[in-house]
């Protein structure tokens, strides 16, 4: 069964450092997303990506965040200068087009710890 793959599963970084979280979406999907879940809080939407550009982003997704689809398979989230409050579980998701877009498939997440 196709699945969304995220690497690494856990990353520890020092405050102020740049991190790149990587995702391989399901191959024939068209929409790509990043969500995050701070410990004890709800899963929050960060950004959606379609046709090689950002289609929507939340207030959380400020200038320190960026996304990229550098090739035909990877989808990355970059945090330019990490802060303590960026510590969270980050989920990548993808969905197909049309009514298939209503089902988002999630990866297992990357736990980011900023120290």
């Amino acid at each position: 069964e196709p699945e969304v793959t995220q690497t690494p599963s856990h990353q520890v970084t020092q405050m102020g450092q740049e991190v790149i979280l990587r995702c391989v979406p399901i191959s024939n999907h068209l929409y790509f997303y990043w969500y995050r879940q701070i410990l004890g809080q709800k899963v929050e939407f960060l950004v959606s990506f379609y046709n090689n550009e950002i289609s929507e982003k939340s207030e959380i997704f400020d200038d320190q965040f960026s996304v990229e689809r550098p090739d035909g398979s990877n989808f990355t989230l970059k945090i330019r200068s990490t802060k303590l409050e960026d510590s969270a579980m980050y989920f990548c998701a993808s969905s197909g087009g049309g009514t298939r877009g209503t089902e988002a498939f999630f990866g297992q997440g990357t736990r980011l710890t900023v120290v």
Partner: protein
Amino acid sequence: AQSVTQLDSQVPVFEEAPVELRCNYSSSVSVYLFWYVQYPNQGLQLLLKYLSGSTLVKGINGFEAEFNKSQTSFHLRKPSVHISDTAEYFCAVSPRPAGSYQLTFGKGTKLSVIP
């Protein structure tokens, strides 16, 4: 904008007993409705979704949910739970028509099945 309220943060229930996990939503536009499950150390898996048609939807693992437009609710039910149903359950909505299928999640309900 949309919001989702899951009224119970934790629900303990004995094995083979029925369970209902409650979800209410608020939205200025029509929405699609979803329930996701998260098992320990795993990503989010879609249990079921309501797009249109019959208000009673059936999902995987014997779960079902009923959409009630007048009460803006989408409660999840299972007539007889198993130990393996122990997990966290998230209700979510996305606006229709959908440009990017962005999901807004509730805070989650932790279901603990007691042997």
